């Protein structure tokens, strides 16, 4: 298990060095998108419209933050923990291939399609501790911008400048490894032992 510090824009070469189980910290630009912002970005790409931000080499965070706006109109992050990534499985592979984000951050893991796209394009999934909203907010140095506020504050495209954002446990790497899949296989093999404790079989 290595501890790796990454600075955006992250190159394909650097991200391919990271392995499942490593801990990564990101400095630079992390942007937020949930279901709606994914759909809109893909729609823009399809229509050939210009995106408000070039996503290549950046880190995408599945998160709907608590934010507040001061009198001057500037936004501040109060709390920003990860949301469940599996909802994005249905289009994340297309998204990664289209935009070449290098790190996807969330909780709960992702599945086959995302794992395959990450191997092909060169991207990793960083599991951020569920609920650790304060740690995330503290790593945000500045809200660089927000787009698509019409989607509502939790769904908008927030752009954060971060310093040592993490710890993120690499749960999918560029070699096709998926930690959540490995754990679920281990859990299956432990099932019998767990049954024995409560005195049941099968």
């Amino acid at each position, binding site marked *: 298990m290595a501890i790796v510090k990454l600075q955006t824009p992250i190159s394909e070469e650097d991200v391919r060095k990271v392995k499942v*189980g490593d801990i990564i910290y990101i400095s630079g630009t992390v942007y937020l998108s949930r279901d709606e912002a994914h759909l809109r970005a893909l729609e823009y790409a399809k229509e050939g419209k210009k995106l408000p931000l070039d996503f290549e080499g950046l880190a995408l965070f599945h998160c*709907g933050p608590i934010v507040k706006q001061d009198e001057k109109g500037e936004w501040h992050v109060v709390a920003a923990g990860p949301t469940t990534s599996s909802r994005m499985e249905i289009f994340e592979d297309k998204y990664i291939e289209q935009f070449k984000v290098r790190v996807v951050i969330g909780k709960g893991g992702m599945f086959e399609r995302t794992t395959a796209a990450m191997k092909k394009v060169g991207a990793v999934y960083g599991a951020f501790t569920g*609920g*650790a909203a304060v740690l995330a907010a*503290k790593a945000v140095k500045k809200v660089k911008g927000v787009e698509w506020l019409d989607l509502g504050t939790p769904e908008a495209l927030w752009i954060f400048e971060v310093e040592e954002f993490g710890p993120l446990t690499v749960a999918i790497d560029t070699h096709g490894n998926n*930690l959540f899949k490995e754990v679920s296989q281990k859990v299956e093999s432990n099932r019998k032992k767990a*049954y024995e404790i*409560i005195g049941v079989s099968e």
Partner: protein
Amino acid sequence: MEYAPIVEKVAFNLMKYAATVLPDSAVKALKDAYKYESNSVAKSQLEAIIKNFETGAKFCIPMCQDTGIHIYYVEVGADCPIDDLGKIKDALINASRRATKEVPMRPNAVDPFGSNSGDNTGRFIPWINWEVVPGDKLKIVAFPKGGGSENMSTVKMLKPGVGIKGVMKEVLDWMIHAAGQPCPPTVVGVAIGGGADIAIKLAKKQLMRPVGQPHPDKNIAEIERKLKEAINTTGIGPMGLGGNTTCLAVHMDYAYRHPASLPLGIAVQCWAARQSGAEIAPDGKVTYLHHNIKE
């Protein structure tokens, strides 16, 4: 005596502290888990959880961005000299509105046919559990409940023939199915008997116990212990990333059942086992039960 103005002020404090400061029993359970965890990934997850709630408490920031749906448990003493019982509900609604704005808490009350109300209130929300108990006090517990863990709560109508072992297997299988989704390490509330509604209500009420406090009945305490051990043997680990800490405690209770039914309620609580309670005495004196809150 008029209680509503005190209740509004107290309930605001309770919501604020529930969202920002984890009760002692949960802190201890998580720190013990960190001490005994041997898996390095699991240890880093627990370390992040601990650092997170400690920082949240220090700066009075919600420990999780999902500040939950607002629930209150209200116990009215049968000899409580209250003259404005009809105003308590509005006092609690006002407290939730204020907490949403001032803490701040994320607006989490959505009209299923429309949009987010923006202030954590709406039809039946905050939900208030009323109970009349012996004594002369009025007790309020604020219990903001997160959505991720609630999504893994369930009711199952078992066949009575499966017996208690069948109940235990069902709980274990369900928690294996839940895996990392409810943000483990979890507290698992379990209840059997009554009916579908009674089982889940009792199961959820078990989450109010200090984390790890066993049931007073030794046989039930033993089932709790075995279930906890079995769930932790699965290796799901904190956040489902593997490890020995999947569950901090199992809290179980029961009601008598219909001869034909064996309802099972499973109420799942994420690591952010948030709650805060207070008792108001007939002289208006407020005693906070989970947090050291100064007026």
